[in-house]
């Protein structure tokens, strides 16, 4: 990113309205920046100026008994997590920290940024994504209008659910100024059941079998042999079990009993190690330390291993990879190539159905290659009309998600 980008610090929605109206008047697109931790996410599309939410910070409402928290968009994620932690609550969607991935020491992802990229961690399958926890928001649209949607209650079908739309919109629809989130109780404790001694296909299959038992496993990942942070000699299926102590122990044992076929071994990671492990999985640590492009594939759980096999057959140089979401999320670290192997990756995913995103690559590659999965024409046209309903002149994050807006 260019260093001398002019940055506008806004303190409230009114100032944002002015900035966005001016951007419209001058046809000068704006980047929306919280902590700036995800700048390398998305297409390389430098904007004329940055609008920073740093000064738009602070928790405005927190009622633990109601499981609800509101905060201004620039509030550091860390601050929110600490506040919730003090009340034994959490953001159950476990927003990922991109610092590991981008080798970045800047800490300070904001809640607005986390929502804008729909950041969700390994608990996704059980607890949902960021999208499932955003109850309502206030924003300034690309038209420079102050708009709110949703509310602060758990159940609400009053009008369109625009919360879903802004989650994962990468700042291309509106500048979020305040968000209201569902907070959930933290589990009393957790353990991780490790299944060892299987080959890759069997290990991934073990994740799926675990997801078909009533033991309420909350996360399902698989690390290939040697992958950090465990660095074990063989492939390892990882199953996280959370809850009251007595329940965790009995469910772990029941789970192990239900998974026995032949040849595998079971081991348990106790609480502290389990927590550290899932933070590393959340932040993509098993692939992050290798140089080179990183892809994230979202496919049906049965297709994750298939996609990797297809890439191997096609001769793609996989340097590192691991599976999350019971096999449905594949992180892939590939060797360098002018197109970051986009053609091979997309072909593998298209054959199965799903979505591939280029999460890390040089600016040059992210200028030339579609970072997010191409869409069929009618869907692409609809997506663009939705964009224009918020931001007709494309002044917010122009080109960040799609070349044509």
């Amino acid at each position, binding site marked *: 990113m260019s260093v001398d980008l002019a940055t506008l610090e806004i303190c409230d929605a009114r100032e944002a309205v002015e900035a966005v109206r001016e951007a419209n008047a001058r046809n000068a697109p704006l980047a929306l920046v919280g902590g700036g931790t995800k700048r390398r996410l998305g297409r390389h599309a430098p904007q004329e100026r940055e609008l920073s939410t740093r000064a738009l910070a602070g928790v405005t409402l927190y009622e633990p008994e109601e499981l609800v928290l509101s905060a201004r968009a620039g509030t550091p994620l860390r601050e929110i997590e600490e506040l919730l932690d003090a009340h034994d609550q959490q953001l159950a969607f476990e927003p990922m920290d991109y610092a590991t991935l981008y080798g970045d020491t800047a800490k300070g992802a904001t809640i607005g940024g986390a929502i804008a990229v729909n950041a969700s961690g390994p608990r996704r399958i059980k607890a949902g994504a960021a999208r499932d926890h955003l109850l309502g928001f206030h924003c300034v649209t690309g038209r420079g209008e102050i708009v709110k949607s949703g509310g602060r209650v758990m159940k609400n079908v009053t009008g369109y659910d625009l919360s879903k739309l802004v989650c994962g919109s990468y700042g291309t629809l509106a500048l979020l100024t305040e968000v209201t989130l569902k907070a959930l109780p933290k589990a009393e404790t957790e353990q991780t059941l490790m299944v060892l001694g299987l080959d890759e296909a069997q290990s991934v299959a073990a994740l799926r079998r675990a997801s078909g038992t009533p033991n309420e496993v909350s996360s399902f990942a698989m690390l290939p042999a040697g992958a950090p942070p465990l660095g074990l000699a063989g492939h390892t299926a990882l199953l996280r079990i959370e809850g009251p102590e007595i329940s965790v122990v009995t469910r772990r044992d029941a789970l192990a009993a239900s998974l026995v076929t032949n040849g595998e071994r079971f081991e348990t990671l106790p609480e502290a190690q389990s927590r550290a492990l899932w933070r590393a999985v959340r932040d993509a640590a098993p692939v992050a330390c290798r140089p080179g492009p990183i892809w994230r594939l979202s496919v049906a759980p049965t297709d994750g291993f298939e996609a990797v096999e297809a890439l191997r057959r096609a001769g793609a140089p996989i340097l590192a990879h691991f599976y999350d979401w019971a096999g449905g*999320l594949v992180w892939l670290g590939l060797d360098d190539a002018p197109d970051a192997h986009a053609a091979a990756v997309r072909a593998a995913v298209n054959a199965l159905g799903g979505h591939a995103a280029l999460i890390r690559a040089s600016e040059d590659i992210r200028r030339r290659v579609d970072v997010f999965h191409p869409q069929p024409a009618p869907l692409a046209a609809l997506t663009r009309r939705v964009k224009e309903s918020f931001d007709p002149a494309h002044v917010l994050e122009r080109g960040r998600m799609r070349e044509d807006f």
Partner: protein
Amino acid sequence: MLIMPAPEPEILSRRDELIARLRDILPAPNLIVDETARRAYECDAFTMYRALPLVVALPETVAQVSAILSLAAEMNVKIVPRGAGTSLSGGSMPLEDGILLGMSKFNRVLEIDYENRCARVQPGVQNLAISRAVEGRGFYYAPDPSSQIACSIGGNVAENAGGVHCLKYGLTTNNILGLEVVLMGGEVIRLGGKHLDSEAYDLLGLMTGSEGLLGVVTEVAVRILQKPAVARGLLVGFQSVAAGARFVGAVIARGIIPGGMEMMDQKTIHAVERFQPCGYPRDAEAIVIVELDGAQAEVDHLVGVVENIARAEGATSTKISHSEAERLQFWAGRKNAFPAVSCIKPDYLCMDGTIPRARLPEVLEGMDEIAKREGLQVANVFHAGDGNLHPLILYDASVPGDVERAERVGFDILRLCVAVGGVLTGEHGVGVEKRDLMGEMFNEADLEQQLRVKCAFDSMNRLNPGKVFPTLHRCAEFGMMHVSGGKTAFPDLPRF
């Protein structure tokens, strides 16, 4: 009271042509033109308002749906999608100048994929039929509206339906993975699939709860869950609604999210016990039914914790289920609550608002006052865990003025919900019923942005018009314009 847009004479005058062209798309039995047969469709479960549809079309294939929507777009005719017609807000109420598009023939379960914990079904499949189809393998579909034996999954998607289990397992929106949708121009798009999130606008989430205004759903991929190992119930009586509400808050504050937490006031308890006794404490001012589900060890542990909380909050009675029969007995009264209440007065209007849970006691008191002012009564049975209220306003349609009185009470109750930080509807939708109250919650800019989203899907406003939004102008009036290339400068965007 509610005013629907006047039928457009231009459309009415072309009815014969419309029918002739629909006959090219659909086999004769799938087109209902005869007036008597059309009467069967003149309202949904919001029976206060009725209209005779111009014609009823019952497509069986996606190609037919697409052809009908293209035809409607071409002839500028309105379309109202309909599932099972159990909407309580008039969402599927027909229009006299519109095609009623019945989706009941889309009734097949297309695929059950246990490995990916997913089922692909057509929109006309009943909610309960999904659980029935997978129960043999110990799976179920979590969202369980009380109407689940009748309502369709397509209608559930359109209304983002909820139910008793939603506190813990989420609403429809948290339990669907993919949709196939036909847009107003006839284009067929697929959103999501068997995979989870992808880096694109979440149009799947937007479609859910959009009340049939954005597109016609022709296929739904739902998540199926493994049934919890056990479920146990507690039936707790309290001396006041306030004490019951404090108990509910205390359970959640302890970090426990029950599978269900339902509350009933004394009027409902008595009605239920008269209708079909099931052992509810008649002396209690309120009862709370708590269901804990999950692994045996966990449930047994939590039952003890919740019982202690109940004692600490001054419960007047506590019963714990020790068998499946006992647990179902606790629920029997809750399930019969609506019919039971009809024994007090012949008719009731079921409202639906959500409030911050802590405001429960004052809101219940306020509702009573509002009803008294009009000489009516309110009975209460609701999803206490997530603050979703369903006040039943009791009236007698044969008494002149009662219908209007009931409506006034309903509106004032919803205004009260919004005033304390809640919303107009938790799960039944806005439809026509609450359309004119949208301004209580949203200002003009909020509503205009929603309308622009509508225009992005349906620029002529032909899909289910007259629902959800108080007025709907043509898209051009909202400054909805299509910019090409993103390069055009708009020095001064039009405002209105």
